[in-house]
């Protein structure tokens, strides 16, 4: 049996999203994850190719998924880059402004006193190991898709997504976890419903799935903007402290 490099790339990129905390690493990993999923779909040929791009025969579906991935990643990357965006400061009274100054000082202190600690990565690492074991076992115990590779890919994406949400320390990381979960159901739907014994792919759910991914990224970006505007940080422990 040959090695499926795209499957390995899906696994690795999702693992990077789960393990790392820095958005400069996780957001490019998410983009790569979308790209590898699109390439994986192109390789598996769930939908017959209908366009030729740079000499590569692919289906429009793959292109749509690629565009969705790029859009989602751009939304999150722009959000991460523009954390300094302020919301409605012109209407704030003195108390509100003072509260913002206090929050900014607290966030500054937290950044200054939070060096790199290996212990921060212990829980995500073991969560990843657990997800890997489950993703290897579940395709044999409970196969759903047309091949083991498909089952591994969607189980792995769903589990790393859920564990990313569970171990997330900031709002953006929660968004990344949710998007991994959405990718899992996207892959499962495309792979399973396109099989001969299923009802067949419908353009509406596929379009809505892509739209949902983008709207989800926008919702996460909006909440991240609000949180930063309120607390000058995206850390969840600050959100739940007050």
């Amino acid at each position, binding site marked *: 049996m040959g090695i499926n490099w795209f499957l390995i790339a899906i696994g690795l990129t999702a693992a990077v999203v789960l393990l790392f905390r820095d958005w400069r690493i996780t957001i490019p990993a998410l983009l790569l994850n979308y790209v590898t999923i699109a390439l994986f779909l192109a390789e598996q040929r769930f939908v017959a190719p209908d366009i030729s791009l740079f000499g590569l025969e692919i289906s429009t579906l793959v292109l749509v998924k690629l565009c969705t991935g790029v859009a989602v990643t751009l939304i999150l990357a722009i959000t991460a880059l523009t954390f300094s965006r302020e919301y409605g400061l012109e*209407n704030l009274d003195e108390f509100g402004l003072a509260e913002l100054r206090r929050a900014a000082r607290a966030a500054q202190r937290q950044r200054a006193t939070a060096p790199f600690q290996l212990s921060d990565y212990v829980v995500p690492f073991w969560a990843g190991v657990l997800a890997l074991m489950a993703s290897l076992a579940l395709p044999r115990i409970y196969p759903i898709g047309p091949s083991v590779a498909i089952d591994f890919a969607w189980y792995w994406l769903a589990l790393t997504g859920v564990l990313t949400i569970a171990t997330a320390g900031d709002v953006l990381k929660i968004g990344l976890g949710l998007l991994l979960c959405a990718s899992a*159901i996207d892959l499962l739907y495309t792979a399973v419903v396109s099989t001969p*014994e299923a009802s067949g792919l419908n353009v509406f759910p596929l379009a809505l799935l892509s739209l949902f991914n983008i709207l989800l990224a926008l919702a996460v970006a909006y909440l991240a903007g609000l949180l930063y505007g309120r607390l000058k940080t995206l850390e969840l422990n600050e959100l739940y402290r007050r």
Partner: protein
Amino acid sequence: MLYLLLIFFPVTMALSTFVLRRRTSLVIFAALGTVLAQMLLATQIPLDDPTRFLGVTLTLNALNRVFMLLFLATGGFALVAAWHLPHGENFVPIALFTIAQVCAVLLLQNPFITTLLLAATGLTAVLAIVDLPAGASTLVGTRAIAAALKYLVLMVVACVLMYIAFVLTDIYRPGELPGRISPSRFILALLGVSFALRLALIPFHTWLTDLVDDAEPLVAALIITLLNTTSLLVLIFTFQSFPSLLLESEGAIGVMRVGALFSTVIGAGLALGAATLRRTLAYLILYNCGMVFYGLASVTTLGLAGAIFGALNQIIAVTLIFVSLALLERPDGRTPGVLRRDLLRRWPVASAGLLAGGLALLGLPPLNGAISHLLLYQAAAERGWAELGLLVLGTGLAGLGLARAVGERLLGPAEETVAAEPLLIGETELDRPTQRRLEPEPRSTAALTGILLLLCLAIGLYPQPLLGTIAEALRGLAFIRAL
């Protein structure tokens, strides 16, 4: 054409009202016109007459039409209430957009699209939770952001589970793969958890308590009435589309029933110990959600009739409760930040609305919840005294919780008014601080509360038309006959 109008007309009006959102009166008028037009459109669509649009089937059955009209009426009530009650800058566009999504869910017959639309309603609701009034001088509360984040995560997780379940139903053939975990049970488990998240059944309920605590009452009302009940209708549609799931999973239905009983009793018990009025109301709603879900999980004609009627009553009662709560929380001219205990004397219409809404959730006659509760008790009695006993226990605990909250907040003695002291030597009336003027209840909102209260009474006293419609709709549900 009518189907598409029902979906896209509110979307276009939502966009228009978003552009004009700072002109509150105009926007509310436009939105009310939209809701009325929607109601007219809904009555014009022929029942059970499916049509195809780009490979997707759209149809409207009797049950969905009743609920669609009720959702539109609820939306209309919320918009009227928004005239005097606090709401976010974007409340009206968000409400219209939510109505459009709910109409689409009720019209479309594709489970994948329905699931994604339900998830999209969740995203829309997030915007409403963190929405601040126009020109507010305060920041968005951290608790509101936390509530919105929790709601977002849980709704997306529910969507993922539901979507996986529907993918499995697409390839599932009854009786296949002996010796493995039954796919029907696995699918039912996925659906059970996802709908438990959406319907806020204990222990998947925490988003609802946070929502009631931290969001504006009108937003909470809109989310609980429109989105939760739509989810319930989708679950009924799922059972109708895939009856083999129920036929092959007798044990799993039992688990769902036990979960509903658990949710009912624990929700009611928590209402008894809730620290605030909002928390008490949240737990009363959880208790009622448990009751409604019990009716559905009993999978009998009686139980399902009770569940549908219960869901319908819940919409009216919850709207009444939150409109009344928003009125009671309005500044009334007294010193802010002090816990008031004389609300019934101070604002009698709002207090009566809150009390009646609570009693309707408990199913006390002559209010609207009475008949639905009776049907649910009958369905439970068919299953044995233990289940009936648990439902009655839940109602008793919830009643005690409501009585405690009412005693603490509504029925207390009137605040003593400070007797005017005689004028000091050289002092004139002009030297004294102006007399504190106590605000009366806003008439339009008090009238709205009164209308909702009368509606509760009218349905309670004369439920036959609604029961007839529900019985007619139940005759069309094949899975009940199959079981």
